């Protein structure tokens, strides 16, 4: 009913890795939706489960990892129940991925043309000449000069930025509904980063796809995302529009993240404010809010019980006891007035 409106509907997704040391709950009850044409930023530090939650969409969660609960509905497919053969048809065609490190993400022993055209060979009925034609188009689209010549070259003959452009061209070859970009600019030079982001935004408009941008760079997110989900220890702690997250952050972790961004126009040479402590051990996640041990406003209840989400606006919600408390006080205040 409601589900068909969203391109992607992830409901209470749980993904665990079964290691010799025990079950690592990498994604522990994540719920979010994405609409057609939307850019969603997923922000969090290393190990927060941001990549894993996206990888379930592309079947890249391998042994010892496994979906242990919840549902993923993507473009009418029930992903968690899909047999591998059907799943393969979706990957690359309806959802595609670009990765962090373009230096290692392309196979070194095949030409760029071979790898680009492989995508078309897998998902379209184009013949050899048409595939070549499309590959040239794609390289033009992502701004690679002399595409005819470049198609015959190998990845090691490309620079990092150029390889990422090739990765983008490959990802977009079949005009997917959703592009997942897993830290697409982290491994690149700053100037190249801006170019690549610009290219992605540009292509998003041209093709009309949705983009899931996984990153720990809030600067990148603020420029291009419609909405942002903040993840911590396998859970979403706050989700809202970009403005809501940046101007009215409700969760202590989001606050901490925003405080730790360096500000270029500040004249005082203040030190950056880091978030103290280390990320939580996912082998033994705490009973309460996972951020509580590092939170400066931690209360007793935070350590004991995971807070429920509070809806701040139609688009904005967060899971933090401070918000619950504020809400409660507000209600009491209102009651007191009566």
């Amino acid at each position, binding site marked *: 009913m409601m589900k068909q409106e969203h391109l992607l509907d992830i409901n209470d997704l749980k993904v665990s890795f079964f290691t010799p040391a025990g079950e690592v709950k990498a994604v522990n009850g994540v719920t979010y939706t994405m609409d057609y044409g939307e850019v969603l930023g997923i922000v969090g530090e290393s190990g927060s489960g941001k990549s894993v939650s996206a990888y379930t969409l592309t079947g890249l969660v391998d042994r010892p990892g496994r979906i242990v609960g919840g549902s993923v509905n993507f473009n009418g497919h029930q992903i968690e129940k899909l047999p591998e053969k059907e799943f393969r048809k979706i990957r*690359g065609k309806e959802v*595609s991925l670009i990765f962090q490190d373009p230096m290692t993400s392309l*196979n070194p022993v095949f030409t760029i043309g071979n790898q680009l055209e492989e995508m078309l060979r897998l998902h379209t009925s184009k013949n050899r000449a048409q595939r070549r034609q499309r590959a040239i188009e794609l390289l033009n689209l992502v701004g690679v000069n002399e595409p005819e010549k470049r198609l015959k070259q190998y990845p*090691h003959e490309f620079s990092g930025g150029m390889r990422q452009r090739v990765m983008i061209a490959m990802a977009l070859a079949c005009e997917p509904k959703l592009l997942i970009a897993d830290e697409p600019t982290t491994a690149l030079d700053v100037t190249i980063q801006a170019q690549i982001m610009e290219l992605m935004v540009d292509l998003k408009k041209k093709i009309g796809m949705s983009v899931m941008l996984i990153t720990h760079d809030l600067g990148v997110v603020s420029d291009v995302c419609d909405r942002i989900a903040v993840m911590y220890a396998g859970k979403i702690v706050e989700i809202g529009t970009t403005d809501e997250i940046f101007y009215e952050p409700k969760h202590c972790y989001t606050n901490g993240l925003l405080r730790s961004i360096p500000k270029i126009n500040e004249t005082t040479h203040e030190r950056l404010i880091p978030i103290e402590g280390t990320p939580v051990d996912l082998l033994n996640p705490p009973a309460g809010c996972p951020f509580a041990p590092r939170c400066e406003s931690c209360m007793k209840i935070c350590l004991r019980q995971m807070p429920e989400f509070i809806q701040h606006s139609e688009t904005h919600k967060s899971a933090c006891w401070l918000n619950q408390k504020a809400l409660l006080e507000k209600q009491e205040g209102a009651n007191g007035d009566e």
Partner: protein
Amino acid sequence: MGAYAIKRIGYALLTIFFISIITFTLMNLIPGGPFLSEKNIPPETVKALNVKYGLDKPLPQQYLNYMGKLITGDLGDSLKQKGRSADDIIFTAFPISAKLGGISILVAVILGVFMGSVSALNRGRFWDRLLMVVSTLGIAVPSFVMAAFLMLVFGVKLRWLPTMGLHSVTAFIMPCATLAFYPMSYITRLMRSGMLDALDQDYIRTAKSKGVGKSLLLFKHALRNAVLPVITYLGPMIAYTVTGSFVVETVFNIPGLGREFIQCITARDYPLVMSTTIFLAVLIVLMNLVVDLSYKLIDPRITLQ
């Protein structure tokens, strides 16, 4: 490319030169000589023979004489096999060994690559464990034990296969199995680790995300990256195998080059020792060159210089 070829040929000639010197020295350091046998030959006859074959001259002179003839393509005459020249002996025996060795290598490569891939894909599970046991056996068990075992089971007890010569197709089975077992096991192990390494790479993740199926993933994307160590091993291995194995040729009574090689040493058949050694050296140098060139074909990142 031209400069590269010249450089390689230069190195090859240098290598062969050193090998010839070392072989010549060692050969002459071994006590005894070609004409000392159980039969009592009069000393005058021995002396006459030595003079006839130039063995009375100082060693450096002997070496130069041999090398001088070698350059003109004359490998010298056998001292023990009457009326036969070294190249006649080598080129009669070599095709037999080469045929045997060639089949063995083919079997070893095909099975090794396949078994290694299966092993890597099933890491830690039953097939992996089983194949690792088999390949450990293959590396640990000496070929004469293997040959004797096969002969006992299939030749003597079951009487399925002939135990000597190469007179029928079935006669190839046991010698080839014996010859192939070690390289097959070695390739299995190389392939397994290469495959595990390749399957862990980012480009495999990319291929998976493109919707590439399992077999294409394995045999296109991973195999070509995983096979390089096997190619490295293959060069010298081919050279050794096609020149024959003394053990296998002796056990199965096959008139190949491997047996000839050992026999000429025990007989102090100096020209034959020199010629077979240099023949083997040339073959190894050549195979290494082929390997280096095929690297370039398999991995475009490699530049030859």
